[in-house]
């Protein structure tokens, strides 16, 4: 162990003064900080690589509130289309707007059919000469009865929405 010669040679008072000076110098902080650029650039590069890997260009659809989608291993890519959702509490939504209680809509589907016809007509106006693809995204909570889903699908089919895409959570 290397001893400080000044501290060894001094008497008690001198030691006290030396220590006081030292403590004063400890309190002083450097005004300029050195930034560790190498680690920062490393971190940024790793973050960019990770985010680029998870980057997706597929279209996104809004997930309705109160809908927990079932998982699927064979999920395909989502296509942009009107979204019909059946929530866990039994409400039916078309493009985030409430249509009514699903069980009642199934028995009296006039309101839903009218709204679907409006979508179809507006599509026909914007795409003159192109046949209607009849695509619709159907979101349903995983606890909802499969019969209710099939009945809603029957209404969609009767309204020329035959390409039904059941929304699921894709598992990689």
């Amino acid at each position, binding site marked *: 162990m290397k001893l400080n010669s000044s501290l060894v040679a001094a008497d008690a008072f001198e030691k006290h003064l030396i220590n006081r000076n030292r403590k004063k110098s400890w309190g002083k902080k450097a005004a300029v900080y050195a930034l560790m*650029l190498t680690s*920062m*650039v490393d971190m*940024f*590069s790793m*973050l*960019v690589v990770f*985010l*680029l890997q*998870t*980057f*997706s260009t597929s279209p*996104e*659809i809004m*997930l309705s509130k109160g809908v927990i*989608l*079932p*998982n*699927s*291993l*064979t*999920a*395909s*890519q*989502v*296509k942009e289309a009107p979204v019909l959702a059946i929530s866990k509490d039994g409400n039916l939504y078309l493009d985030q707007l409430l249509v009514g209680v699903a069980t009642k809509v199934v028995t009296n589907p006039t309101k839903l059919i009218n709204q679907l016809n409006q979508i179809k007509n507006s599509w026909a106006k914007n795409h003159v000469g192109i046949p209607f693809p009849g695509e619709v*995204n159907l979101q*349903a*909570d*995983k*606890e*909802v*009865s*499969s*019969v*209710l*889903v*099939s*009945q809603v*699908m*029957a209404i*969609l*089919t009767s309204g020329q929405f*035959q*390409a*039904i*895409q*059941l*929304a*699921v*959570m*894709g598992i*990689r």
Partner: protein
Amino acid sequence: MRKQVGLGKKKDLTADLNLTPFIDLLSTCVCFLLITAVWIEIGTVEIKQSHGTAAAASKKISYDLDLVYKTATNLQLNLKKNGKRVKSFKVQAPNEEVFQAQLFETIKTNVLTFKNKSIEIATATVTPKSIVNYGSLIQTLDTLRKNEIVNIGILSAKGN
């Protein structure tokens, strides 16, 4: 004194990289990618409700498959040819996980190699039941798709 050819003035081999634009670019990239990142991946299972289009010509013999739910973990598979039932298979299990595994095996070993011949399923129709929830129905559709049965329709059943 004679000048040495090709040696000239020695260049400094250590080059300083200007880090400021590099960090700027990385920060911009990180911000853009974080904003556009998709954390929940929503997929779709396509259902074909109509039988309008003709199937492509194939060397394999083409059949139709009906899946009729009895309970949530009890299903009857009806193999049909030209609308007539050829063979029935029953799949029954104590829980959902075992049920899906058994369904996969039945389709693979009994249906797709019917009478020791490789057959093709043109369309599969699932008849749901009210006690079967939508999550279980999707699992069944998943099992069909895993067996390369992609033309799937869901029959509109009454509330029973």
